[in-house]
């Protein structure tokens, strides 16, 4: 065999092994790589006792319509992922993008079935459009995205 083709085969095997091992590592670390859990994930994990309630975690989802309650600086709202939902209580500054049906990520702990957050980040989506276009879509009733 020519040394060239030998090197090619070695490289090919090397890349296959590298890809496979990376896949296995990422697969087994999946729980740590995800930046947040959805309400469905969380409720499942609570039921199966998979979660350490004393540890801080992140949950993400959409702010539920008509669920935002403000009392001074304290705020409570529900976030949902279309299937399940969870109540979040928070005391602090909200990001500008915070509103109904907006995707958010909250950091905090679960305390008697409520999620008490210490930090809230807004999750931006992948849609980019000028304001006039979004206004027009809303006017024509073709608006599929956020409510406001």
């Amino acid at each position, binding site marked *: 065999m020519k040394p060239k083709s030998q090197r090619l085969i070695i490289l090919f095997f090397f890349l296959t092994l590298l890809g496979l091992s990376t896949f296995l590592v990422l697969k087994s670390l999946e729980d740590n790589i995800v*930046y947040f859990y959805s309400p469905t994930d969380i409720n499942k994990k609570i039921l199966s006792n998979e979660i350490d309630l004393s540890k801080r975690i992140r949950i993400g989802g959409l702010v539920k319509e008509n669920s935002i309650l403000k009392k001074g600086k304290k705020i409570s709202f529900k976030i949902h992922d279309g299937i399940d939902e969870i109540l979040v209580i928070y005391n602090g500054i909200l990001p500008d993008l915070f509103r109904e049906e907006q995707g958010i990520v909250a950091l905090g702990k679960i305390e008697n079935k409520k999620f008490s957050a210490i930090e809230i980040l807004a999750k931006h989506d992948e849609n980019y459009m000028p304001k006039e276009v979004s*206004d027009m879509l809303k006017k024509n009733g073709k608006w599929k995205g956020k409510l406001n």
Partner: protein
Amino acid sequence: MINYLANPNRFLNFIKPIEFSIGVFSFLFIFIGLYLSLFNSPEDYQQGDTVRIMYIHVPFAWFASFLYLSISIASIFFLIWRHPFADIIARSVAPLGLIFSILTILTGSLWGKPMWGTWWVWDARLTSMLILCIFYFAYIGISNAFPRKIDGSKPAAILAIVGMINLPIIKFSVDWWNTLHQPASIIRFDGPSINQEMLLPLVIMLLGFLFMSIFIILINIKTNLIYKKYQSEILKLG
């Protein structure tokens, strides 16, 4: 064609007449692209003016990844066919890629603070981009670590190929895992989810970055060829 151009002298002769026009193109595209994106494109319905960071953030991120891909491909050519010119190309691409990856992270965090409410989070997209940046550092470090530069070529090439595994992770991190970073807007199955008026300046910027990258890499290749010649002359003199 590739075989023909793989000879440094023929390559230099080939690029001489087109080099200047590549520079002019890169200047023109980036000038027009910046004008459109800063002054003549609509505000986003959610982000307002902050969306304008996207017009440089996306080209930086794309080219940071593309340039890394080209380093790894050149490294494969170098390792298997032992072609010294492939090594020169890989070395010439690396500094530009490093700068792009750093600027991706910087512009991204400038956008993240007003939009997300944080400069930095350890989500999969941001972390894999940081790893790309570290791979660039490592590549440049290893390829220049030896007194005779050529001794660093092989280990650096192996490192470059190992780092290639990171590229699909960067691209698909937003689909595989929950991340704070938004999913892809341009390259996706159901077509771009970005309005045409905003896509146009972005495409012009991407073309400008393409020409600019080629232009700068050509200059680097010429410098590296001259340096190599100089080193071999010194060796001859003993």
